[in-house]
């Protein structure tokens, strides 16, 4: 007796999963991108908080170890004619989240068709060159230019001495009797440009500033150059994605309403057919 054949396996048709609407997929993709931006935002926020904490601690240490006569490293010492060494530069860039900008009504996060990208660095003022340059590191002012070394903030505090060194002056050590000749040679060499007054804010507080104050400057530069412009860019980018999510949700709601109306019409027609039969 032959063994009964196994019952024929039913070729089960895979249940058609309700396919997500393209609008829903788009919203999910946007929200995924948004969450990635949010993650970066919160990470940078934490980093900024840590930098600010270090900055305040260094300032407190500088005030604690201040020389006699220095009351407080604060506004009493600000230069009333200060000029910004670090400036903002905003460029327009087509961001991933804002690539499909279609007639932005509110103009949030939009600038010339793309998202604004903020950078902060030692840039020359607008109108003094650098207008057509990109935002790469190579466009930063060279160390020997105005403001470049002035706000370098490397914390070594030797800027004043380095300023006085010129290659022309670094010849072989001249005997004392030749010193006058050497001085004359130096005088004859035309200076390419007048030495700019140092704009390093540390100089407001004196020539020999304490180490904690220089360290505070280092933290501030890191915050201003690395964290704050990125946070501003993220802010604009997130605003752009929010706008797109809201638009996509509206589109989806519109499609759903149209679908519901179509089903209702169909049911109504089916009801009429049943009554007629």
């Amino acid at each position, binding site marked *: 007796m032959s063994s009964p054949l196994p019952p024929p396996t039913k070729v089960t048709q895979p249940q058609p999963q309700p396919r997500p609407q393209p609008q829903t997929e788009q919203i999910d993709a946007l929200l995924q991108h948004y969450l990635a931006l949010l993650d970066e935002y919160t990470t940078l926020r934490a980093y900024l*908080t840590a930098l600010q904490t270090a900055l305040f601690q260094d300032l407190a240490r500088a005030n604690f170890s201040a020389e006699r006569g220095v009351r407080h490293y604060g506004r009493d010492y600000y230069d009333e004619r200060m000029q910004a060494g670090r400036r903002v530069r905003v460029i327009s860039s087509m961001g991933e989240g804002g690539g499909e900008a279609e007639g932005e009504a509110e103009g949030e996060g939009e600038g010339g068709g793309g998202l604004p990208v903020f950078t902060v660095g030692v840039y020359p003022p607008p109108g003094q060159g650098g207008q057509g340059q990109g935002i790469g590191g190579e466009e930063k002012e060279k160390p020997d230019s105005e403001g470049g070394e002035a706000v370098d903030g490397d914390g070594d505090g030797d800027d004043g001495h380095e300023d006085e060194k010129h290659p022309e002056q670094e010849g072989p050590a001249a005997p004392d009797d030749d010193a006058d000749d050497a001085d004359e040679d130096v005088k004859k060499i035309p200076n390419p440009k007048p030495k700019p007054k140092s704009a390093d804010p540390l100089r407001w507080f004196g020539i020999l500033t304490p180490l904690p104050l220089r360290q505070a400057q280092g933290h*501030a530069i890191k915050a201003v150059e690395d964290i704050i412009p990125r946070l501003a860019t993220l802010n604009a980018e997130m605003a752009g994605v929010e706008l797109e999510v809201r638009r996509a949700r509206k589109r989806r709601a519109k499609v759903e309403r149209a679908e519901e109306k179509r089903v209702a019409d169909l049911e109504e027609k089916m009801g009429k057919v049943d009554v007629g039969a």
Partner: protein
Amino acid sequence: MASQADFRDRQFLAVIGDEDSVTGLLLAGIGHVTAPPDNQKNFLVVDAKTDNSAIEAAFERFTTERKDIGIVLINQHIADRIRNRVDTYTQAFPTVLEIPSKDHPYDPEKDSVLRRVRRLFGE
């Protein structure tokens, strides 16, 4: 719609904060005083004696009147004093960022970006 020309000249950061916050940020070289006779500063040091009206005026000046400010930094506890004004600010330029101060740590609950996030997710 913010045009490219709108932000081309926005080259300064502005700060509204307590003395240590402003001093720290000015150490980075962002402080600027315009040429006479205006002598407009791009920072405001706020202390216990500073009126809310003065803070609001500075905020208004940095965000609306001056066209050379790209980013406005304001201590979060000072932003709380003009919270309504800060929350109703919706312009793209300049960007307003709230930063922590020495005596008042950063509170995410008050952060305008994170509040927007909550609104987006329906909370």
